[in-house]
């Protein structure tokens, strides 16, 4: 397994791209809610669309559309699939 896979923040993947979650750098309640929604390490997340203002961004996770703010999504590390 390639341990040198580059991870990028989820907020940077473009619309339509799919990233696989590597780690969550968020704490507290946000962490819990994201985990409860199934965004655990290894889960594929697809960037679907951005709000007219560019923020928040809607992601498809396990058949559900979840919107996250830019700064929160930037704390989630993914590798591009």
């Amino acid at each position, binding site marked *: 397994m390639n341990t040198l896979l580059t991870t990028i923040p989820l907020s940077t993947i473009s619309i339509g791209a799919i990233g696989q979650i590597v780690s969550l750098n968020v704490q507290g*309640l946000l962490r*819990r*809610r994201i985990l*409860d*929604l*199934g965004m655990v390490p290894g889960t594929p997340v697809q960037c679907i669309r951005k709000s007219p203002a560019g923020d928040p961004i809607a992601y498809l*996770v*396990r*058949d*559900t559309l979840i919107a996250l703010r830019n700064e929160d999504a930037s704390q989630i590390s993914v590798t591009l699939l």
Partner: protein
Amino acid sequence: MTQLNIEEHHRILREHFGITTTPGQFTVALAGNPNVGKSTVFNALTGLHQHTGNWPGKTVDNAQGSFTYRDRSFLMVDLPGTYSILAHTIEEQVARDFICFGKPDVTLVVLDATCLERNLNLALQIMEITPKIIVCVNLMDEAIKKNITVHIATLQKELGVPVVPTAARNGEGLGDLRQVLYEMSLGLALTNPRQIIYSLEVETAIQELVPKISRFIGHTLNPRWVALRLLDGDQAFIASIIHYLDLENTLQELAV
């Protein structure tokens, strides 16, 4: 359960959860993720025989409704929609406390057929708390539109509990649902809920704690569930245990 215990149980329900049951009434806790059509199921079954309010002492919505099927009266308690019951928010705590300590006769978990995986998270967690559970897979009509097929028999086999497919919006499957609830109330529906298998690290930790927990709480709660809550550092749950189990112990003293 002795006669005294049943009456005391109902008293606890009234005082701590604001729920009053008539004699012989079968209590059904209704759980599910947000946006799965839980209210549709609730409204379809209870019609206008419902009233809304708050859970005692909390700013969380509570809805209760009743219906009769055959000769049985049912009281349905609509729990707040939650993604999980690991209790990080007040809504999850309310749902968790009611299922754990309110001892509903059965918990009906409503799942969304179009995103079953995420919904199973809640179902599996509830199955860990209580074996008295029925799963309802709702929005089957939406699943068909999205070319998603849910194999109910397989699901039932995997979960080990009754699974009823419904499209509550169209009224489909509700008859079967009532029937399964009825059979459950007669003790005819046997459940053998699938146990969640955790990774080695977690399982080892559980095994360390379970024997001691069993000695402490006996049969009131699933010791595996309690162990997991403690390992998760769930302070609110510990407070709840002390609060509700203290009450049970006092009642046991009275019954003797």
